[in-house]
């Protein structure tokens, strides 16, 4: 009985705080994305000569994100029937945009005109597949070459 109460408390806490933080995060992402709109980040540039560039430097942005209790519970249910896991989609979306933003903000302070050959990567550093112990922690990194 107590276990059940604790479970519902955690679920409610996860749902409300998770939702709150997600909305706050999306607000901040959208605001910063508008601010960094002037700096284009492109995925090409490796094999093409870039005549307009004189200086280049590497920029890396990274973030480790975790799911909340509610998301993990919904994922657990979703796992039974299969299909889209919407709760994790927004998580990864936030992480990726945050990593890109951090890279861009560094490049802007350096004075870059463009970031070329951007690469995105994500890896799981938390729980292993098939093991329900440990936490959900996903690292997303974005890196590219700033030129000016």
């Amino acid at each position: 009985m107590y276990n059940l109460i604790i479970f519902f408390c955690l679920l409610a806490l996860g749902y409300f705080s998770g939702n709150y933080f997600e909305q706050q995060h999306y607000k901040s992402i959208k605001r910063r994305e508008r601010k960094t709109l002037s700096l284009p980040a492109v995925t090409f540039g490796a094999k093409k000569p870039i005549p307009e560039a004189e200086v280049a430097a590497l920029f890396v942005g990274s973030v480790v994100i975790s799911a909340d209790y509610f998301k993990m519970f919904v994922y657990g249910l979703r796992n039974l029937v299969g299909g889209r896991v919407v709760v994790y989609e927004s998580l990864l979306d936030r992480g990726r945009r945050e990593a890109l933003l951090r890279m861009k903000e560094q490049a802007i302070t350096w004075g870059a005109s463009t970031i070329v050959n951007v690469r995105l990567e994500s890896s799981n550093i938390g729980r292993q597949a098939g093991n329900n112990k440990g936490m959900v922690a996903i690292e997303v990194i974005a890196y590219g070459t700033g030129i000016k």
Partner: protein
Amino acid sequence: MILTTLEGVPGKEIIEHFGLVQGSTIRAKHIGKDIMAGFKNIIGGELKGYTELLQEARQEAVERMVRQAAQLGANAVVNVRFATSSVAQGAAELFAYGTAVRVK
């Protein structure tokens, strides 16, 4: 030392290749951070402690790569790539590699 993810360095010409250079480090999380992160895992959001830990570790991997390149006599590393993998429960490997070159 110039680092780029491109096949060359813009505005400069590659005059010599030195081959692959790499740097890696394996870091474990410390228990205090793990407890905080466990709490964060209930309410969701960014795990700031881990982000810092991995950034530090990546910096070290890059430094090791740069040191290796400097030993070869290079002044730039091109086509740099990063990889992260979880090697055991609670430990992550940060890995950076690229091609050491001399540019003019």
